[in-house]
């Protein structure tokens, strides 16, 4: 074959044109334009938030695409083409330094996001996400609106749930420590309320609890458990001051349940994905021993002793 300049330039352009037709144009022509079950239009405010998301490169750390093999945040629903029919540009992302955000809306109440955006270490002590305080409060609010819309109709449902419980949580908090603790505990299923921590307090267990507390809880509840961590000024209701729980009927089961399940409507997140059962008991007992000064660990009814106990 003789490689003349024409052969090189025109030949390669012809190849390119053919391939563009097959791998770009055909998929475009046959694209799915039907909205999926969760689709709704984005509001103007959400669209502004999305622009901030793009300008600050959130897409380099966060995907918006749930796969069939995922477990974490948002994994309840696998992505469909019809979810994206208004995304311009689409923000699937190529790296997950942080979690997938497809279904972020309603995972947390707005105040959690405010504190988190100001500095992610406030709510997540080990986070490596950049602080976005430099955006200013207006942009943080707008960005939060976008984050709370991720997941579209599913997000809206979760947001309604957050608002419903937020109103009750704030009212309880404003009624003073007595009423607040009462409200918190009456929402814990009864079986849990009457359950003491079945495991004995050990030095090793407390040390583990201490580590977990530092890695997960400290930004809100503070190193001394008084709820005055750096996130506190941004949260309403503020993080619980554990010392008020003393003599108010708290149990190992209540602590376990609240840590596992979180308290929807407040910034208190659920930890059932992040902490295995032993870790939840350990951090609960750490809180009980050091901050509440009252633990029911290893009291009856505790059933048959666990096999590992010395």
């Amino acid at each position: 074959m003789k490689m003349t300049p024409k052969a090189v330039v025109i030949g390669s352009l012809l190849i390119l044109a053919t391939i563009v037709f097959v791998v770009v144009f055909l998929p475009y022509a046959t694209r799915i334009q039907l909205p999926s079950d969760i689709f709704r239009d984005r509001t103007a405010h959400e669209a502004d938030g999305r622009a901030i998301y793009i300008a600050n490169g959130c897409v380099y750390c966060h995907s918006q695409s749930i796969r069939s093999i995922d477990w974490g945040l948002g994994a309840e629903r696998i992505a469909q083409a019809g979810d994206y029919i208004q995304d311009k540009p689409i923000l699937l992302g190529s790296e997950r330094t942080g979690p997938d955000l497809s279904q972020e809306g309603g995972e947390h109440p707005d105040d959690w996001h405010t504190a988190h955006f100001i500095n992610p270490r406030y709510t997540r002590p080990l986070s490596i996400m950049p602080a976005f305080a430099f955006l200013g409060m207006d942009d943080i609010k707008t960005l939060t609106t976008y984050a709370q819309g991720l997941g579209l109709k599913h997000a809206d449902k979760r947001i309604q749930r957050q608002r419903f419980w937020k109103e009750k949580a704030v009212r309880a908090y404003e009624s003073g420590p007595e009423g607040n603790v009462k409200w918190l505990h009456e929402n814990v299923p009864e079986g849990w309320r009457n359950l003491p921590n079945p495991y004995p307090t050990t030095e090793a267990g407390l040390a583990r609890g201490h580590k977990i507390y530092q890695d997960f809880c400290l930004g809100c509840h503070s190193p001394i458990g008084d709820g005055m961590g750096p996130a506190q000024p941004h949260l309403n209701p503020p993080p619980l001051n554990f010392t008020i729980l003393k003599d108010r009927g708290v149990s190992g089961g209540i602590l376990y349940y609240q840590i596992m399940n979180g308290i929807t409507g407040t910034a208190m997140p659920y930890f059932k994905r992040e902490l295995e059962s032993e870790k939840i008991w350990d951090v609960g007992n750490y809180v009980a021993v050091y901050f509440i000064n009252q633990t029911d660990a290893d009291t009856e009814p505790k059933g048959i002793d666990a096999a590992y106990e010395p």
Partner: protein
Amino acid sequence: MTTNATSALPTYMTAKGFCLTSGFWMMVATFMGLLGATELIAPDLTENIGWLVFGRVRPIHVNLVLFGFVTPGLLSSAFYYVPRLLRTELYSEKLGVITVLAWNFALVTVVVSLAMGYSQGREYAEMIWPIDMLIVLAFTLVFINLIMTVAQRKEPILYVSVWYVCAGIVLTAVTFSLGNVIWKPNSGSLVGIPDAILLWFYGHNVFGLLLTPLSAGVAYYVIPRACRAPLYSHTLSLFGFWSLLVVYTHIGTHHLLQVPVPTWLKVISIVDSVAMVIPVMAFLINIWYTAKGKLGEIHADIGAKFVFTGTIMYFFVSIQGSMMALPDVQRVTHFNNWVVAHAHVGVLGFAGMISLGGLYYILPRITGKPLYSRFLADFQYWLILIGVIGFTVVLTIVGLIQGNAWLNGETVYRILPEMHVYYVTRASIGLIIFSSAILGLYNILRSIFFNPGEIS
């Protein structure tokens, strides 16, 4: 044409200009990489400095590496070897210098606009419309200069390096325009899934139709010359060239295997990703057989040493890439630092190494004096080699930790502390690479401007 026909000695202004461009922006680009790596260790280091936030530093790093360091370096060699291979002079050095200036102006606007948060949010296509136009213009100017040089050639036969450069430039100008959706200045994007398909068609072609052909062009020029041996096979050159164009352009969708895109498109991309061994091996066998028994000569020439190492990296990155396109492998490797390791073997180990090799090969020839310091160049070679291998090992380990942990149901947050020590190692290696860029720039500057060397 008349201006050039009369001038006595070629000045190689354009080649020198692109050489300086590459050396300078390599320093800036690797610094941005180092900064980003440091932010992943100490996220509050740049707290409240909006324009240095990780999400803006990363695209600056990536775009500068691609369009500031590697591409200009490869073009610098091309502006030297294309006229030489065609026994003529560059069509217009003036146009060439204008291109260099336009190119650098575009790079400055890239940095400033991304730092200010003007981004279209699509990987490798972040730049806003006016900058896209500048880049298309720069590529067009390069193409005009080269094709006019071809037109005035005194050598009837086009050597394979010339095919690669001409095709690489014209195809990139087209795919860049397509990929950046330049007919929609405001968003620079399509809507929904087709946007992802187009983006990764283009994104993959940045490697396949720009870096790879330009690197192949340099390798095809430098290796036979350094070995003083004829090219092993003309048939393999032809085969490698056309199969690269056909196969590489099909595989962009392997970036989207876990996303709801049409299955037939995924199948094409997987099959052709595996078929990539054909163009890759056609090229490599051709180069390696040319160098057979001549490794001494390659070792003796620092430029050729860089280039040859680059071809070995090309082997590894391509075999790895074909593996990564298999859905079973991608269950573990997608979305994590494994891909970042792959990207560095490709862009720094393969294209970057060859880009530098080309520069060190042509510098003595365009200045008429020996390289300012062969030792510094050799030292830089080792720093980069250690850097690339170090990156690959460290980032692959992190990627495996992340990928396997996620598959097992662990959350992203839980893995962060496990990654920390590797991130520290990674930033240290980044420091090595950044240092090597400073040495490289110094060597280039001294070779061009303050070179005490004898006239060779």
